[in-house]
């Protein structure tokens, strides 16, 4: 009996630290998730403040217009690779004619929203996290408080609003350029008929494919902007580092978490749409 109790207490003392650590991590994650939801909710409401319009326009220029070039570049080559791969696959089944449909649907439903979101995360999301993080550690956010300017309203809300506007527009841009990329490889390089390609694009794509793609873009916009702003805004609360290093780590976390969340959300939204 004594031996049994000893073994029992030994196994408890072995598992206790693991369970404690697991419990602490879970509580921290749940807390952070709750804080993020509240952060998003408050920031979202503040979008409609009367002084927001000029700041939102500035952010649309930064997040949207300045990301256009990279989206064109990535969209073109994604479409070209897709055209090339699908052409060779479809030829095996004697269905090369439906290349236009295959390229367009792949881009509009999946690749367009996902790759655009990942591209903007890398370019603008990282910048959001770093900029807000530096403003936090250099007391610029405290300065806003002392001037009675709500930092969430001034720094976060315009970025969320600008993302909601920019992501779908850039996704549409990506889709269009990607379809042209598929045209370049499928028609110009592989010799498929141009009329056939565009006919199948038009015939294969339905309105719900486009709205589904845009819905994903809006969901990604909200998630990416919230995660990046949140990571920057709470840089000073990081436990693993301080100062400039904390800003660096917050930026990395913002990009990594955003990319993972984009893929998870993509699956969830797709399963809801289908």
């Amino acid at each position, binding site marked *: 009996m004594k031996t049994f109790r000893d073994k029992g207490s030994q196994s408890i003392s072995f598992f206790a630290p693991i369970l404690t650590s697991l419990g602490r991590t879970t509580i921290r994650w749940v807390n952070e998730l709750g804080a993020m939801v509240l952060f998003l909710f408050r920031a979202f409401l503040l979008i409609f403040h009367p*002084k927001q319009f000029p700041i939102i326009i500035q952010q649309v220029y930064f997040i949207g217009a300045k990301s256009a070039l990279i989206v064109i570049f990535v969209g073109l080559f994604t479409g070209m690779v897709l055209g090339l791969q699908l052409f060779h696959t479809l030829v095996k089944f004697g269905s090369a004619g439906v290349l236009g449909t295959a390229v367009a649907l792949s881009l509009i439903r999946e690749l367009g929203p996902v790759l655009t979101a990942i591209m903007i995360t890398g370019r603008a999301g990282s910048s959001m996290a770093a900029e807000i993080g530096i*403003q936090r550690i*250099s*007391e*610029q956010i405290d300065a806003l*408080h*002392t*001037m*009675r*300017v709500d930092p969430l309203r001034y720094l976060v809300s315009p970025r969320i609003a600008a993302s909601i506007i920019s992501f779908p527009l850039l996704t549409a841009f990506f889709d269009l350029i990607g379809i042209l990329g598929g045209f370049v490889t499928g028609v110009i390089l592989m010799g498929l008929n141009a009329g056939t390609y565009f006919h199948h694009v038009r015939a294969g794509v339905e309105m719900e494919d486009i709205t589904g793609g845009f819905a994903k873009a809006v969901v990604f916009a909200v998630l990416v902007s919230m995660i990046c702003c949140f990571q920057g805004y709470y840089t000073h609360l990081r436990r693993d580092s301080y100062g400039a290093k904390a800003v660096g780590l917050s930026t990395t976390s913002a990009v990594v978490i955003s990319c993972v969340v984009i893929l998870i959300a993509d699956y969830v939204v797709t399963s809801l749409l289908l």
Partner: protein
Amino acid sequence: MKTPLIEFQKVSKRFNNHVGLDRVDLTIDEGEISTIIGKSGSGKSVLLKHIIGLLTPDEGTILFRGRPIQKMGKSERDGYFSRISYMFQNNALFDSITVFENIALPLRQTTHLSQKAIEERVRARMEQMELTDVAQKYPSELSGGMQKRVALSRALVTDPKMVLFDEPTTGQDVIRRNAILSMIAQYQRQFGFTAVLISHDVPDVFFISNRILALNQGKIIFQGTPEQFEEFEHPLIDEFVQSLEDFQEHLTGIQTKRQFRARNQMGLRRKRPQEGYVVALFTLQDFDQLCEHMGHTLGQEVINAMGTYINKHFGAVGGFSARQSKNQFTTFLPFSNLNEVERILKKFAMDLQEEGLRTIQAEADIPHDLCFPFAILSGFAESKTGEEEIDLVFKKAEASQKEIARVYCEIRR
């Protein structure tokens, strides 16, 4: 009794196991400059952040004109915070927008003024602060002193009733430190706001302060006038102030009032009872106007050069000098009688007029095209050991002051 602008009643704040503020009672009166001094980590910034609302107390009450802030409604609280500005230690300027936009930001974001009205107000403030030339520059392109002026302009653009300065002179040399303090005093008089400063510039900050608050480990250990502080005996204050004053003397060569008093007392103790001594007082007249005309940095260079000149001259006859106020120096002459001092001063006045003023201006590095007519006054008084308080002798010397030298701009040209 006048209601204080801000009053702390038993305010406490803890951060985990660290005590930020410990049952602090204090008052800040309207229209005055109050200075908070204390060692690093004694709770000075924590105190300031409670006034601006960046921190809230764990216990106790903060009153604004007798009304507890915690019990104010949203609009009343907004009204309270709108009357306060805060100047951060590191300025906290927005580095991605221009100087103009930095100053305009609080007006753009918190008022309903038209674009034209905002521009006019910002331009007016920039002119007062001599920042017009750098309006379109970014903060990182400016010198430290200029960044301070931008931060001060931003703090003052909303016409606040109270401005809180968190170590406004940190990282500046002696001359610039005094120039910033002088600038704060000038704008405080000009705009009439209540100022609360955190400063380590003992004793220079006393020249502009109406009230001193000393903090140690989150507790107020002294609050009163600078004169009362000079008399206040406390081991922690002595240790803290001594370290700062030693540093100051090392940099300027001029003794502080506290050191002057100690040396003075030692000198008097060595003398026999009823043995005579003389105190001379020198004043740079129209110092504020000189600072406005030449800028605060050059103004401080002039006063510094004047102190060095006086010290050098009277050191030869066993005298020692101290800065008495922002534009006054006192010299203690323990080995001279009234007749000797009269003769020495006459010679000093002649030297000062003939070459001393030129030396002072040259040492202050005043450009040739910049001239401001200023005068130096002097007065002296004799007393005997044990007869009267030294402060009374200073007052007698002050009452007897007359002009001994003057800068004439026409002659310089």
